């Protein structure tokens, strides 16, 4: 068993990477096909019905749409791999990649603040709920998701603005302010909005995990060894956290998706506002860039979470091997 461990580890890592690459390839093909699937001529959609034929031909040429589809695909992939770009943005007439990278920091700030907030709220709540089954905290944790399930994130954002920015004037209505403190101040309401949408489900599933761990054999050992409650709690939390981390990794695309929409509410100049602007302008090279970068980000985060979990806990590696074997077989 000891001798085969490095091999098993390599196999496990390899499986994750291969799966990630497959997913990314599929994503890229999908993004490439989107433009070609649009009913009608994409150039026509950009320019409107009054466009002159030479204008349309110009766009066709600029985007390479006058080439055969196989050629289009290879040059799309080649450009993407060498420069990380998907072509010039039609609306801005600059590199789409540059536009995305320019807007990325604000979105990353928002994602990070929200993620930290979600964890900071979820952990103590789930722990309290699981340790004191049936208490008011437990009841709350079970009822709140029912109420928040149907809350559109953008509407929650508006209500927060109304409450905390307009009525009580604690936080700014929108936009970003300079400096790290200014950034944190601007991120408070948007990240709270996203956290409110995400937290209830995280808490609910974390609570279930903690209850599972509480029923595990080793907890009986800890009790039998007369350890104080707070020490036992620490062991339980560490064991419950790993599966929860995995779950959180899977939910990361919801976090990113929420960010895109909530940026609109608070007038944050991030990738979200870029995306919805690009859709209105039918700026498909830009849409392609945003889609690919978002998917890449989500896939990378979930892979990091998966690997981190597996390195800390040998049991995850075993489970992942089973899962990917099942998926590939």
């Amino acid at each position: 068993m000891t001798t085969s461990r490095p091999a098993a580890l390599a196999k496990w890592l390899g499986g994750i990477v291969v799966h990630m690459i497959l997913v990314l390839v599929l994503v890229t093909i999908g993004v490439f096909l989107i433009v070609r699937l649009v009913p009608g001529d994409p150039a026509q959609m950009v320019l409107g019905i009054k466009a002159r034929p030479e204008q349309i031909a110009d766009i066709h040429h600029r985007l390479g749409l006058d080439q055969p589809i196989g050629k289009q695909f290879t040059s799309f992939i080649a450009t993407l791999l060498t420069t990380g770009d998907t072509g010039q943005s039609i609306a801005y007439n600059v590199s789409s990649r540059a536009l995305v990278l320019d807007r990325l920091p604000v979105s990353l700030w928002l994602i990070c603040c929200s993620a930290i907030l979600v964890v900071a709220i979820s952990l103590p709540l789930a722990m309290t709920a699981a340790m004191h089954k049936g208490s008011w905290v437990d009841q709350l944790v079970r009822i709140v998701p029912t109420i928040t399930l149907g809350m559109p994130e953008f509407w929650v954002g508006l209500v927060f603005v109304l409450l905390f920015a307009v009525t009580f004037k604690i936080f700014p209505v929108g936009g970003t302010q300079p400096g790290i403190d200014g950034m944190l101040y601007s991120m408070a309401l948007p990240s709270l909005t996203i956290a409110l949408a995400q937290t209830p489900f995280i808490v609910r599933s974390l609570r279930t995990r903690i209850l599972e761990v509480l029923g595990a054999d080793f907890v009986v050992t800890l009790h039998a060894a007369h350890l104080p409650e707070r020490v036992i709690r620490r062991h339980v939390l560490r064991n419950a956290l790993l599966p929860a981390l995995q779950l959180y990794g899977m939910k990361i695309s919801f976090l990113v998706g929420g960010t895109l929409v909530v940026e609109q509410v608070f007038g944050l100049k991030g990738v979200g506002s870029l995306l919805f602007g690009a859709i209105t302008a039918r700026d498909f090279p830009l849409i392609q860039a945003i889609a690919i970068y978002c998917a890449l980000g989500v896939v990378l985060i979930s892979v990091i979470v998966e690997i981190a979990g597996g390195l800390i806990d040998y049991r995850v590696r075993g489970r992942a091997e089973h899962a990917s074997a099942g998926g590939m077989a």
Partner: protein
Amino acid sequence: MKQSRLPRTLIAGIALLAAIVLAVLIIPLLSPYDPTAEDISSMLQPPSFAHPFGTDQLGRDLLVRVAAAGRVDLALMVGVELLPFVIGTLAGLIAGYYGGWPNRIITLFSDALIAFPFYLLVAVVAFVTGTGITGIFLTFLIMGWIIFARTVKGATASLAEEEWVESARVMGFSNTSILLRQMLPNVLSQAVIVLVSDMVALLVAIVTLGYLGLGVTPPTPDWGTMIADGQSFLATRWWVSTLPGAAVVLVGIALALIGDGLNDARRRA
């Protein structure tokens, strides 16, 4: 005797949903106002006896508009979900029962789709299919089946391992008959529970698309566009944005209660 064993959450959810549907159907019939009739003389009025929900920036009565938008959005929610539900359930049955390449395709597709943030995907598909009701319909037809396929696939695969399936085959039942007569009734309850919670997500998505200007297009009333309309007056005219949103939340609560109740009922059975 079965009646008394229904979970309380299920009863509460159904009652709430029935009340909402009833209100949405009746209010436009009883109200003296037309949901699209503009009246500049009574713009942005706060809630009052004449206008219980107040009026919007064009002087339209918000109560009747919220109800009219409810008709549109709820009908969309149900109508849009039907086809993906049927397609996804059948695909999941096939993939779970036969395994092999149908299973592989569904796994890969769902993994690739999960890599996209939901609203990014919705926005991109809406870009392809165009805005408006057709766009919404196509968007969720493309994406909606996957969640059902995944759920049903898992449930079917674990059922297919059970002994009675093998004995049914030995007894000469055809695969189709085993799938539809034996498997389907067993996995349907799980699919329906997913359906209920997915409908909430769908409603929120429809409303969000409306808010972003990618969904239901004016003049058709829709909760999302109504909330977007009110955003510019949020500081002084709170009711324009918050009340349509509250309607969404209420539907969400009703469906979540039904989902929880169905789950409880299934676990008890």
